[in-house]
């Protein structure tokens, strides 16, 4: 029973983490790069209009950071809930 509860808590924590990461994923690409692009383009970011930068470079940089962040957090969660591989 204790084991089942622990597993359920682990899965819930995982789902929360995934949801948070996917929210960032959606915001930087579909949000900043597509839906809000015109609005963000009013801002100059170094040599770029900001919306254009997110669409062509910024989103990719965020994706890379996001995956490493997720991997690091998940490996931490595995240990915290005692479900890590040996």
């Amino acid at each position, binding site marked *: 029973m204790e084991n089942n509860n622990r597993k359920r808590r682990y899965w819930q924590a995982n789902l929360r983490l995934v949801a948070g990461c996917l929210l960032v994923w959606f915001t930087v690409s579909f949000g900043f790069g597509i839906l809000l692009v015109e609005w963000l383009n009013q801002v100059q970011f170094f040599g770029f209009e900001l919306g254009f930068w997110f669409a062509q470079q910024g989103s990719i940089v965020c*994706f890379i950071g996001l995956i490493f962040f997720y991997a690091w957090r998940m490996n931490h969660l595995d240990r915290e809930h005692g479900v890590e591989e040996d």
Partner: protein
Amino acid sequence: MELKTLTYLVVGASFVLYIGIAIWSRASTTGDFYVAGKGVHPLANGMATAADWMSAASFISMAGLIAFLGYDGSVYLMGWTGGYVLLALLLAPYLRKFGKFTVPEFIAERYDSRAARIVAVVCLIVISFTYVAGQMRGVGIVFSRFLEVPIGLGLVIGMGIVFVYAVLGGMKGITYTQIAQYCVLIFAYTVPAVFIALQITGMPIPQIAFGSTVQGDSVYLLQKLDQIVTALGFPAYTSGTKGTLDVFCITAALMIGTAGLPHVIVRFFTVPKVRDARYSAGWALFFIGLLYLTAPAVGSMARLNLTETIQTGTVGAESANLLYEDRPSWFRTWEATGLLEFNDLNDDGRVQYYNDQNPEFAPRAEMYGWNGNELRVDPDIMVLANPEIASLPGWVIALVAAGGIAAALSTAAGLLLVISAAVSHDLLKGVLMPHISERKELLAGRISAAFAIVIAGFLGYYPPAFVAQVVAFAFGLAAASLFPPILLGIFSKRINKEGAIAGMVTGLVFTYAYIEYFKGLFLRWAGSPWAEDVAENWLFGVSPEGIGTIGALLNFAVAISVSHLTAAPPAKVQELVEHIRYPR
């Protein structure tokens, strides 16, 4: 040394390297053949995944497409990278925990159904063959341009190389050759980009040069590009012309499709642990990002270079257009291939390159005595011609040829392997002959890989439609057929086989029919598309490139509704779902 000899040497050396690696890493068990014995370091797997993923389309075509599309080209940049986030967060760690060999095998066990396995095999084979046809075509083009051999012979050579290391080495051989191929292709992509960035902006790092000011001027590269192209009647480089919903759907279809491509998914079966699968996806995207962050820079600089070569001064001044007599040597080289065409419409001996489809610009063009756009440039040549445009030494040009071939071969090999695994492991061992011995299964895998190579070569010689369209089709299908049942299979215990099969069939049929309707894909032999491929005819304004998103949504909707109308899956399936959710 003559350029051709040099190219033969560099490309030949890369082939020797690949074959050497293949012999060193022969596969001896089915585990080696399908998943490289599950012993690949996550960083190495990330590099191999990057080569597996970056195809001839990424290496040769993408920067050129972006050069002419400007902001609209962002769909490829975001679409072909964002899928890795979905893979890393939603699929890879769980499929690694499942710990078997193929994607249809997961579908079969999760849905406890042989029928579902067969449907998944059909989806996988259709997706992979359409994709591999594009790669073989890319190999043929590079061979014919740089080595001046006929496309057919180029294909046979390419097939021979893939044959050696895919058939001999299986996944193990492919993994280590892909690592070598990644190094070749990223070096070949970066070197010309660095030189061109230096020439244009004085900043050697192309990713940063993209946002820098141009040499000897205080204006930013992108601002200058916007000025130059709008002065010729083109839409501004940094703003889009496609509908927002369409851009949204194309990006989503490419992302979901990436996450649903079997040859990418299966790479995450090769690492030792669940936590390795997570990091490995990050490394894969890091290595992909090195090229994908360079590509938009290359695209913008190539566009600037091309336009300034043709339009040498103020628009409208007579002497400001390039004299055809004085055209540079790369212009002549590519004219010979037919990928660059000049047609002197107003007989003034000068090249006019402008947007003759823009009604607002038409009166000005008439005033200048221009009689229509005289230059047609195939976007595919932008990357290949780049070193020549920037007058780089011969070895750089040879390197680009080797890089293009590496990109195409690495992807082709990955695709051929999943096809052969689907035949020998899923059809033969899974359905037809469950008691086949491991040695015989390995042999069957090798024979089906060999057959797949021959069919791929044939498809490369007689492509069903334009390569880019074929590849877009593969993504749409992967998004609409395979991604939903895998995702639902992990995150829901309620989805059953009836739902999964109904969903896959709906997604596949809907997406195929929509693309066929506008592109006339495999029925090319039967005639032209059924309807004109223009925005007025599209469903909700979504183009065939983006329809995979709608197909995936339909798949989800059908799978969930049908599952809730039928009985819940048996207890052993529920246990399997529990099992894959926890690393231990």
